[in-house]
């Protein structure tokens, strides 16, 4: 066994493998940073190349794209308040305010560090604890998925500080959007208005581009036209994170990495959910939760460590069970099959060296991601200094290209524009996009797994509380929802006696 591991280690360090990992990571970061170009698209673009590469080099390229794209999404999230992929939507919350203050370099530096730590942490878990985490994957049944999604929804109560009522309205609207399309249990079309376009449900990527990039572009154009927006001044003092920031985020990094790895190991849940949960937990355990949303280092580090930790976690069900948890790992499953490797319970026995080489490849991809991130940091950080009249047309062009490139479907562009206008209206009315996005991501999981759980339990709701994992998740969800209210009530109660005395 040890012999296999050291063989794999040296195989991973071959020059060709280093090159493929580097190239893949580069492509991944570029693809991730463009709103609309997703990691799946990057993976499918490089997939044909990987078939022509002998040995494990092709997987190194795929792993590079996989990790790089998750990280790349944070760059635009921080700089122009537009997540490059759904994974980085939570990074906007604190990353953009920090960049707006003129600290784009600091935010990018934090997100690069957090992404690397998250990725490496999950690679270590993949190396040492795969069998254990694989068991978590099979222990997750419909009640657990439902409870996890309910917990995810309860985060709405925390992520948006302005108006809880407006957040709930936005989340409900997101849930409503998630019901569009054919129903899994009866096959009936819902809210499709007779169109084929809506049969498969609301298209996520055009919606993200519209809600974030297009709507943000409209707002910036308006402010810039009125001359409200001062030209941003960005000073980059150093590209490495500051010592006090490191101290502030160390606990957050570990917690978020663990959360991301576990959520990644559950098939069907990915970086988008992990980043929100990590953000929420960072806020829950913070000594200054009220500062979240104003540009605190933990707020940038938590979602980025969380979503990059998904990379190692997601490989666990793929390698140990042969089950891809998302579209990205499904592409990798295809690549395995093409190389005559069938992932599944026998993979570690039949292809020991290849599997360990691939795991070491994940380490390499994360290291290259770190190097490329810091090397490009000064360049990226200049983007907000580009004058609005130059930057905005570029952003709008990318909105159109990104929406179209997804499926080469013009309807996606129209849909993107519609959601962009809706997003603009929401901003003007004081609603925020995150609760809506959360509702949309989680709505399908909530509904399908609620119905399936009730089929399994013969209609009894007790199923959500008699199973340990599901029960714990439900309790956390309830506490997330009610603890702020209880705390508020207690505060009021404590305040009363002195007031009564004074009277």
């Amino acid at each position: 066994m040890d012999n296999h591991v050291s063989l794999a280690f040296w195989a991973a360090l071959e020059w060709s493998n280093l090159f493929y990992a580097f190239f893949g990571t580069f492509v991944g970061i570029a693809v991730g940073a463009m709103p609309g170009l997703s990691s799946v698209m990057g993976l499918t673009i490089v997939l044909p190349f990987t078939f022509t590469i002998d040995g494990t080099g092709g997987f190194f390229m795929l792993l590079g794209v996989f990790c790089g794209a998750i990280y790349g999404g944070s760059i635009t999230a921080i700089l122009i308040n537009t997540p490059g992929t759904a994974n980085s939507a939570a990074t906007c919350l604190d990353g953009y305010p920090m960049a707006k203050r003129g600290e784009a370099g600091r935010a990018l530096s934090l997100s690069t560090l957090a992404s690397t730590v998250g990725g490496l942490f999950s690679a270590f878990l993949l190396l040492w604890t795969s069998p254990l985490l694989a068991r978590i994957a099979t222990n997750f049944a419909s009640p657990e998925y439902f409870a996890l999604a309910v917990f995810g929804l309860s985060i709405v109560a925390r992520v948006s500080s302005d108006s809880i009522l407006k957040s709930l309205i936005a989340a409900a609207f997101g849930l409503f959007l998630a019901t569009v399309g054919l129903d899994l249990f009866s096959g009936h079309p819902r809210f499709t208005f007779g169109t084929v376009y809506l049969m498969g449900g609301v298209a996520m990527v055009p919606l993200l581009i519209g809600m974030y990039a297009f709507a943000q572009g409209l707002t910036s154009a308006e402010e810039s036209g009125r001359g409200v927006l001062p030209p941003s001044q960005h000073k980059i003092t150093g590209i490495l994170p500051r010592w006090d920031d490191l101290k502030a985020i160390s606990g957050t990094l570990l917690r978020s990495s663990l959360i991301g790895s576990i959520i990644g190991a559950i098939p069907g849940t990915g970086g988008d959910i992990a980043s929100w949960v990590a953000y929420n937990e960072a806020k829950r355990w913070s000594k200054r939760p009220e500062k979240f949303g104003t540009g605190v280092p933990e707020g940038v580090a938590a979602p980025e460590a969380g979503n990059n930790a998904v990379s190692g976690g997601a490989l666990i069900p793929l390698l140990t069970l042969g089950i891809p948890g998302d579209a990205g790992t499904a592409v990798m499953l295809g690549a395995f099959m093409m190389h005559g490797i069938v992932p599944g319970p026998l993979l570690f026995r039949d292809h020991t060296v290849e599997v360990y080489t691939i795991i070491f490849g994940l380490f390499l991809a994360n290291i290259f991601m770190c190097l490329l991130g810091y090397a490009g940091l000064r360049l990226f950080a200049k983007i907000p200094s580009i004058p609005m009249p130059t930057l905005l047309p570029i952003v709008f062009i990318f909105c159109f290209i990104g929406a179209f490139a997804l499926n080469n479907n013009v309807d996606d562009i129209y849909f993107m524009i519609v959601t962009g206008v809706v997003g603009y209206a929401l901003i003007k009315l004081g609603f925020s996009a995150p609760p809506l996005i959360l509702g949309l991501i989680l709505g399908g999981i909530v509904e399908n797994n609620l119905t399936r759980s009730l089929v399994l339990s013969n209609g009894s709701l007790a199923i959500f509380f008699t199973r340990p994992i599901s029960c714990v998740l439900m309790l956390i969800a309830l506490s997330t929802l009610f603890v702020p209210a209880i705390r508020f009530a207690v505060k009021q109660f404590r305040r009363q006696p002195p007031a009564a005395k004074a009277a």
Partner: protein
Amino acid sequence: MKRIGCALALAAALVLAAGWAPSLDYPRSPVSIIVPYGAGGGTDLIGRALADTVKGSFPRGIAVENRLGGGGSVGMSYGQNARPDGNIITNITVELVTLPHTGTGGDISHEKFIPLIMFNSTYSAVTVQKSSPHNTLKDLLTAAKTDPIQVGNSGIGAIWHLAAASLEQAAGVEFIHVPFDGAAPAITSLLGGHIDAVTVSYAEVVSQVDAGELKVLAVLAPQRLPVAPDIPTATELGYNVSVGSWRGFGVPLNTPPEIVAWLEKTFTDGVNSPGFVKFMKDTKNDIELLSSAEYAKRLARDYEMFGKLINDLGLSK
């Protein structure tokens, strides 16, 4: 002289016709194969493997796109209503002739497709956990008479739900049917012991069977599967049930015949290529190749057959 001139002109025309006439302007754009099921399931993997073997014939690329939902009707509806220019090829499956009968197929119809080729057939395998107390099909069906047995499938009205339902009918028992979004999550749920059995295809459970996690009690096939000669058929065990699925490619009606012919030939070559044959063997899938014309007859025949089955089962709309 005039005659010679005519003859020359005719000859030249013939040469031109032979050499350049079928100057097919296809494929000019990237081509998509719509897989109406989740990535990583049986349909998806075979579709991807076949797309990969023919990628040399598509200079602008050929990519697999998963459009899931509605037990397969979302993807197939998208595919049949696409522009008939050959740029959208649909991985059609048996649901094309089952869902219209259950009334859950939206607007899908086998008459709106021109079938290109069929390349695979597969049959339901009644599968339980290795540690399950049920060691034979009879054990499971006897237990179902007294206890609730939860059987996972890949969507209501989908083929593996029909398989479980027709087994119910033949054995005179009732299962609790649990629908999932594709076969992979149903298998994961069985591995975790959250359901009692699945009736998905043999190919989809084989790696877990080899690893000793799951066991197959019987296959619902007309005869034993070439890839699994030790597993009995339900018919041998006294339950006359045979429900299977096939996979193939189709393009929208009105696609130009020369494009259809080109695609049929390209994919037939792909199916016969050593790489694809090896892939199918490695992943324990059977190849069953039908030409466009044969496939069209099969579609019509199966449409009738499933119509009767679904009606008998009381699942029709």
